[in-house]
């Protein structure tokens, strides 16, 4: 006989197990395989332009994996930053250097060793994490029931995430907005101002040579 306290959690657990069928596993496997293939191609290819485009594809694939994990907001940030603005920024860097990578002169074994050890440490760190969508994970049991109980009569906003961001963490959100606004103005000034000044410098140099 189920306890009264657990009956609330059952629909969530059912929904999660139903969504993770064989087709979900297949989708995850294909996406991860493509991710690994793209990463290997980024390491192998010498044409830097192709590498920039592949970095955009890598970011789109990561975004897709985040969507399959139901983290659509993180996925959208990944797509906008990774596939959108960093592709353009990398192309801007590419315009200042050559189009092809020179073969490296040092041995690849030490960097490979460092990467393998770091990856193994990260995988070891995930071993005692709760399963995806587990009903007894700390995310579901720690502060979540408290917020669900308090938000309707303390804030009165239907969306609990909005209530947390705009009310419980209001100052935090205001600070974040100020930081993003400042960063945006800085980027706008850099993009619109620096290129023109550099061009004027080039013109001055040319007149000096003449």
């Amino acid at each position, binding site marked *: 006989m189920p306890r009264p306290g657990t009956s609330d959690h059952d629909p969530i657990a059912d929904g999660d197990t139903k969504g993770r069928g064989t087709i979900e596993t297949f*989708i995850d496997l*294909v996406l991860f395989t493509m991710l690994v293939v*793209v990463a290997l191609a980024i390491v192998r290819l010498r044409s830097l332009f*192709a590498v920039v485009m592949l970095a955009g*594809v890598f970011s789109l694939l990561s975004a897709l994996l985040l969507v399959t994990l139901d983290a659509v907001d993180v996925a959208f940030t990944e*797509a906008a930053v990774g596939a*959108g603005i960093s592709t353009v920024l990398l192309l801007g860097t590419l315009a200042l250097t050559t189009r092809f990578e020179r073969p490296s002169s040092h041995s690849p074994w030490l960097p490979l060793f460092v990467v393998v050890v770091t990856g193994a440490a990260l995988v070891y760190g995930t071993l005692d994490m709760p399963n995806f969508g587990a009903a007894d994970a700390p995310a579901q049991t720690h502060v979540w029931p408290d917020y669900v109980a308090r938000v309707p009569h303390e804030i009165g906003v239907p969306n609990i995430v909005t209530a947390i961001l705009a009310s419980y963490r209001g100052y935090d959100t205001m600070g974040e907005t100020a930081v993003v606004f400042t960063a945006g103005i800085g980027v706008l000034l850099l993009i619109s101002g620096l*290129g023109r000044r550099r061009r004027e410098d080039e013109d001055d140099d040319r007149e000096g040579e003449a």
Partner: protein
Amino acid sequence: MNMFALAAIAVFVAMILILVRLFAGPTLYDRVLALNLFGTHTVLFIGILGFLNERPDFLDIALLYALINFVGTIAVLKFFRYRAIGDSGHDRAQEGAEQ
């Protein structure tokens, strides 16, 4: 196996073909087009995933990806043309005419 799973597999096959073009692509424009197509297939796949999980409200997110993909491709192509992102490009074209 339902139709949406088959559609997902078809999109995967198309994605792999696009990746082959991206690896091999002889010219820059092949690769730009491949990136744009990959973004389009991401949009399609998010839509299919929404129907697979019986939550079609994912379609809004797919629309956002379509917008990002469009703006990104325009930014890359504009960069090819003018070698800058923020400028109008007008004075640059003039300078090219003078040279």
